[in-house]
């Protein structure tokens, strides 16, 4: 492979591509479903999170798998 080909083989993401999720942007026809999702997400996150993430992560350490 030539140097030029290697260069072309690099990651190419259009700089104008939005890199943040589109979730919070209103979409016609999806707004209502999106709001319901976000409400449910807020509730689920509140229920799930431990309030002490570092301790949770330390408690949940796992051995390497295959």
């Amino acid at each position, binding site marked *: *492979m030539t140097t030029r080909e290697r260069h072309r083989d690099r990651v190419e993401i259009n700089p104008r591509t939005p890199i943040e*999720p589109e*979730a*919070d942007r209103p979409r016609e026809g999806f707004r209502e*479903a999106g709001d*319901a999702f976000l409400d449910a*997400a807020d509730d689920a996150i509140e229920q*799930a999170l431990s309030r002490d993430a570092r301790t949770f992560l330390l408690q949940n350490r796992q051995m390497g798998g*295959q």
Partner: protein
Amino acid sequence: MVMGGETEYAISARDTQGTIVDQLTLLARFLDHAKRTLGQTSTADRGRFLPNGGLLYLDSGLHMEWATPECTSPFDVVRFLKAGDRIIQDLASSMTCRWPDMSEIFCSRSNVDYLSKTLWAAHESYMHEIAPGALPAELVPFLASRVILGAGGWDYRSPALRFTLSPRAHFITQVTDRDSQHSRPLFHTKDEPLSRTGSHRLHVACSETLCSDVANVLRFGTTALVLALVERGVRPGREVGLISPIAALHRFALDPECRARAVIATRQRLTALEIQRHYLSSVERNLGESDLPDWAERICVLWKATLDDLERGSSRVDATLDWAIKRRLFSRRLGSRGIEWTTLRTWDTALTRLEHVWNAANRDQPFELRLVLENDPTLTPEIRRLTPFVESQGVSWSQLPEFITARDELFELDARYGGLDSRGLFNALDASGTLRHQVPGLDVTNAVTSPPPDTRARIRGDVVQRLSRAGTKYAADWIKICDLDHRRELDLANPFETQEEWREMPAPVLTR
């Protein structure tokens, strides 16, 4: 076509004082509890086959693992994977009654421990009749681009936060390898067939556990169809052979908009979606042929719809595919902390640079974010050099502690996403009715107790249940069951075996 899947679970527990229960103690208790609760009379120490024909065991990486029975459709594989989730969670829930000193047991389908930077996989097995040497050329572009169905999460190599469609993808370092325990290939070539019919077994190792039914059904269905195509003599991989497959896999994984391109042998540059569409077209051209499975058209419809949605943008799949659901959750949580998604890239760039500087000066001690907070002298000049860049992005070093706190929280969210109980984020969202991931007709309740009807798993499931009820000691593996009390054995080397024919046992040599 016979196929099956494996799930390795993350399990942890706290005692009533809030102290971590040692992992080995927890796993020993879990195994013991499984033996007593499930009532099997197998003589194996590390696991046992259940009446539904699947295998529950402790794997060599010390994770509780569920392997589905042999199935003939992707819909069945997903049904039995979900049955495994239910079996594991039921066992975990009832453990606290037996060991009241354990106050909380957490089981998750997550595949990453971000603190230890360790990962575990969700393997797939497919029976096929293709010469193993022909597989890489046909399969590698497909598997590298299949990352668009990944579980999502964080690239464990980043000292900051770098979103990826598949954490597992960055763990993969080679295309194939014979070793299944130490190397990290897309698929293994050890070809342990688990049958004596002359067929081979493809063991795919590049995926992680998925919660979404759509993603899961597509993962197994599309892979099985590509194999079926190659069995017919079609060669779809050659037209899209990647020059650098592993680099392409990593690149595709880091682009949620699915626009990243990789060079193929013809020097064209294709996206993951274009490669997937190439395989889809190849399968579609062969629909209706008698040697393609009867579910092929249903998978193609779902495959095409998902690729079309991804083409239109990730927002079209953010209630369907795991990585997109997770990304939306992560974004929401960052937003609630006042952190912009774009800030992640700034911290990733700056902290990766500092990690390089640290590693160049300190080969023995790993880089940690506290070194930046403490303004370690090794890093001070580079921190100073990076300051204009960081500030130009609207960020300041004084915000780093807040970012680190958010980072831990997002790692926790990732682990909580796959939680098996009702507080698991995926389960909670599913219960709220706001996801669109369901595939109709997946009867999980039946799969918990009953084997698939059309493979040797039916015989295995019936026999282990009958022997256990009779109190008969037995040992079993995927291709044989040995009745130790009556010194007879049942040969299940044919995956489609329908007859239960016992013969005298020469010597007990099996372990499960």
